[in-house]
């Protein structure tokens, strides 16, 4: 090997701790990048393949009851390639040994065999036998949660009638990759199932002979989606059509798209921070190295090494550091990506989800790492290459010091000589000090972001379930029912209060904007459901006009006092105008509320309820639930306690991991910055410090000058870190918001405290490592040689 290369390797070895700290920062950024980008690619590709192979439909529509021959008119719509009519309905399941409500979405499959669209992917067993009355195929996630296998039986209450179903197969569907109960945000595999049955069997169970209530359509590639949707709406309107929608509004697909969007955001923010910090650290370390090796550069040039050779020599050293970071980052990213794919596979049910790192991601990762290295070190490396040899022979011009700002503003007499040393030193390199503070602030911010999500989730649950929604149980009716149903429930044992509500599908319009949504009618004096404002204060249901979720108001571009148009998609399908009377703050879903009586008047079908909210004694909950489930008119029962429990079960684990990972990542940056700052200071000022020791300073007093400087940097960085952390949380919350859910920007005092303490703790670790080196300062040697 060439002697110059040996030198590069030995220099690297000499710098190993600092190089490692930098390589770790690069690795953390790259691992983040690879994980997010590769997962993003894997997920999009897998989704596309699943959708293509299993004929995911383009348009979806629900109606009350449509005679089968009407399907012919749907087939005639311009651009429609295939039409699949079917029955979709809710049902309750009872699982032996599991004493909690289990909801199912019953989906019919054609008796003739495989459907044209949304074909299930069979994981185990077989599809339904033609003509079978009691066979069922169930969704994989649910089967796994309860250990069901083909051959088992299951009891289902469909339309109030109980029946035994024989499980023949376990399947997945492009329609239910993200499997959630309507109206919820997180999957609950134990309490929600997709069950496929033969069309004829479901027709019988639902009293729907010769009719369908759900249709999916495939459009030709050239077809205009909105035109087809309008045509479908026209055809289905007389049959209680609830408005057709495309993939964008299909729940499972919508959640997946949101997830991909978030991954994309992740893939941008975190790698940028890490690689930015890495660039800064490389700059500090390489500049110092070049400074220290002035004489070596001079001698190499004196013997005829060219500028290019010198430049390449230092570039090689940088490349080695980056190389270590890249290798660790790529391997770490792949490992994290595989782990992520596993997590995704739990939440998003694909037939397969293979984590694959494409050449593109590889090149991107290596490319941005090299770019960061270039930005960080180009200046120092070029300076080394250009250093005139005769000048390099001479020691560098002495550093210019001057009294620090604190001294200039008259605080000098309060400062000890050591304090002056450290202040002047910080001020002498204002950019370096500033960038150190910025880098440390990012470390602090990342640690905060890790905790912010946990805070936010707690707050969301509190706002949604404890303040906004106070019912213990809820029951949806199969169809709108008179108020007698509510009175009847009030008489059940353990029930403290019952309030009815009505839900109608509507399209809200304002100017050119429109949103499909449910309009919910609530009694003005409702106490079980109380929409609240941003400060969690109750917003009463107005006698006239609407309350809108803030996000919905934003989407429609309306505020209090504006008028929106409401197209009711049910009954007489009236269109009316209503005033926006208030805006409410909700984190899950979006809603529009109006007075129950006013809604009933608008619909004109009398005093009716879609369901009830129930407050009940805790001991009576289980009995009540069973009682409700037996009633034929009750389509589904919700238990608030279980909803909250599920929320935490689903998210708790991944939140914990996220907090932990963010802590480590923040720690990596903190260590990278503090340790490198300390080592560079030590190398720049070894002579000063040794001189102080010779003059009789104790080790602790000497450490104060060095460690005090670091602690000052960290202390300066923490407030900035708090601000940055808040902004980063805000950015993440804003970039993740959708009509599905919004994350509140809420950073609690414990989070600030946690991040601040974590910063100090990791600074302490770096300081202790450097402290040991101060103990080993060569007092005599350092004074004997020329600097």
């Amino acid at each position: 090997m060439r002697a110059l290369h040996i030198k590069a390797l030995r220099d690297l070895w000499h710098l190993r701790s600092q190089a490692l700290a930098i390589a770790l920062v690069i690795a953390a950024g790259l691992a983040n990048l690879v994980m997010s980008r590769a997962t993003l690619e894997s997920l999009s590709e897998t989704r596309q393949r699943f959708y293509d192979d299993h004929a995911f439909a383009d348009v979806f529509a629900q109606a009350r009851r449509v005679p089968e021959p009407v399907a012919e008119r749907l087939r005639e719509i311009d651009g429609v390639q295939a039409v699949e009519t079917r029955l979709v309905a809710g049902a309750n399941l009872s699982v032996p040994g599991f004493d909690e409500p289990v909801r199912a979405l019953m989906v019919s499959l054609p008796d003739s065999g495989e459907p044209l669209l949304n074909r299930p992917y069979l994981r185990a067993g077989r599809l339904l036998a033609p003509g079978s009355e009691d066979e069922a195929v169930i969704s994989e996630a649910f089967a796994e949660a309860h250990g069901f296998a083909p051959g088992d039986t299951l009891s289902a209450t469909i339309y109030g009638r109980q029946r035994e179903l024989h499980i023949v197969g376990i399947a997945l569907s492009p329609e239910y990759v993200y499997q959630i109960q309507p109206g919820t945000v997180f999957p609950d595999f134990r309490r929600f199932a997709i069950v496929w049955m033969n069309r004829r069997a479901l027709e019988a169970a639902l009293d729907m002979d010769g009719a369908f209530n759900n249709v999916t359509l495939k459009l030709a590639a050239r077809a205009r989606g909105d035109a087809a949707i309008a045509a479908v709406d026209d055809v289905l309107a007389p049959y209680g059509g609830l408005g057709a929608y495309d993939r964008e509004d299909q729940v499972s697909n919508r959640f997946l798209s949101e997830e991909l969007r978030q991954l994309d955001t992740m893939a941008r923010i975190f790698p940028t921070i890490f690689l930015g910090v890495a660039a800064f650290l490389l700059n500090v370390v390489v500049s110092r190295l070049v400074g220290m090796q002035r004489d070596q550069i001079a001698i190499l040039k004196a013997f005829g090494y060219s500028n290019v050779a010198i430049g390449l020599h230092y570039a090689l050293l940088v490349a080695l550091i980056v190389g270590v970071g890249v290798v660790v980052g790529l391997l770490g990213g792949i490992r994290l990506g595989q782990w992520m794919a596993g997590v995704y596979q739990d939440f998003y049910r694909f037939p397969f989800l293979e984590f694959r790192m494409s050449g593109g991601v590889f090149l991107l990762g290596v490319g941005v790492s090299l770019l960061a290295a270039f930005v960080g070190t180009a200046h120092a490396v070029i300076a080394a290459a250009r250093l005139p040899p005769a000048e390099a022979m001479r020691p560098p011009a002495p550093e210019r010091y001057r009294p620090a700002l604190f001294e200039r503003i008259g605080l000098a007499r309060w400062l000890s000589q050591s304090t002056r040393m450290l202040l002047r030193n910080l001020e002498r390199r204002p950019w370096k000090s500033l960038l150190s503070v910025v880098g440390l602030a990012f470390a602090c911010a990342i640690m905060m972001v890790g905790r912010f999500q946990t805070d936010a989730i707690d707050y969301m649950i509190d706002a949604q379930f404890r303040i906004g929604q106070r019912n213990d149980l809820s029951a949806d009716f199969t169809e709108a029912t008179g108020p007698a149903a509510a009175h009847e429930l009030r008489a059940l044992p353990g029930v403290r209060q019952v309030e009815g509500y009505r839900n109608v599908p509507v399209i809200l319009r304002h100017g050119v904007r429109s949103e499909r949504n449910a309009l919910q009618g609530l009694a003005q004096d409702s106490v079980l459901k109380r929409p609240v404002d941003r400060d969690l204060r109750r917003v009463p249901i107005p006698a006239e006009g609407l309350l809108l979720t803030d996000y919905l108001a934003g989407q429609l571009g309306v505020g209090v006092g504006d008028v929106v148009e409401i197209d009711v998609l049910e009954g007489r399908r009236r269109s009316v105008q209503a005033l926006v009377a208030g805006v409410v703050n909700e984190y899950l879903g979006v809603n529009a509320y109006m007075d129950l009586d006013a809604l009933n008047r608008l619909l004109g079908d009398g005093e009716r309820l879609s369901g009830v909210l129930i407050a009940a004694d805790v001991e009576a909950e289980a009995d009540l639930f069973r009682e409700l489930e037996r009633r034929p008119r009750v389509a589904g029962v919700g238990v608030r306690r279980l909803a909250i429990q599920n929320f935490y079960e689903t998210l708790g684990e991944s939140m914990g991991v996220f907090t932990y990972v963010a802590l480590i990542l923040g720690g990596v940056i903190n260590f990278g910055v503090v340790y490198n700052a300390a080592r560079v200071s030590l190398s720049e000022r070894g002579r000063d410090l040794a001189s102080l020791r010779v003059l009789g300073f104790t080790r602790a007093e000497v450490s104060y000058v060095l460690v005090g400087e670091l602690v000052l940097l960290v202390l300066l960085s923490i407030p900035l870190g708090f601000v940055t952390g808040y902004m980063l949380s805000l950015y993440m919350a804003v970039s993740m918001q959708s009509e599905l859910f919004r994350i509140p920007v809420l950073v609690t005092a414990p989070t600030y405290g946690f991040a601040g303490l974590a910063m100090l703790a990791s600074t302490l670790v770096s300081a202790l490592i450097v402290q040991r080196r101060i103990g080993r300062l060569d007092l005599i040697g350092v004074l004997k040689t020329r600097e």
Partner: protein
Amino acid sequence: MAVPADIVFHARGLTKVYRMGEVEVQALRGVDLQLRRGEFVVLLGPSGSGKSTLLNILGGLDVPSAGEVYYEDHDLMRADDRGLTAFRRDHVGFVFQFYNLIPSLTARENVAIVTEIARDPMTPEQALDLVGLTPRRDHFPAQLSGGEQQRIAIARAIAKRPSVLLCDEPTGALDSATGVKVLEALERINAETGTTTVVITHNADIASMAHRVLYLADGRIVREHVNAMRKRAADLRW
């Protein structure tokens, strides 16, 4: 221009001004000089007299502010950076007061770093043998004494078989006994290889081993002395 064949360096009216931080330093104020092939020349003068600047210019490490300087027929005044680099690589060996060894390379590697880019070098082992340090070749600079380090520096300087060897205070950081060993090495190389050797020193005793002594003061050559009888390095003491 026509220069006698045995003249290696030819300089006239050399001046050099450089900035050091905020201070302007007039290092050379019109130096005229000729050095002959195989000559052993000592430059003597107090610090700040311009010795190092003159040496740096002769070695192509620096360019004068005004005047002219030739190495054989190479115009060093007008050479660009690339030309000066090639000149140093092919013709010049340097030895400095503080050895300037690369601390991360062993003795052998410190020599190899130069032989690797030279046109017709001796092997690092041959060079180390010339300075009597073969047994120490796998030691790092930090493991060697000052005299040994300086002899490694000399081995490094001569390994490429340079036509000129420029030494800036080669014994400045050494005690007299060690310094003599270093000078013996220089004397032997000058005698055996015929390398033109220029040694800067402010130690007047060393001057007695030179063919010729140039005295510098305040950026000018103020006196020249030719030794009728050279002393052997081994006989020097200070």
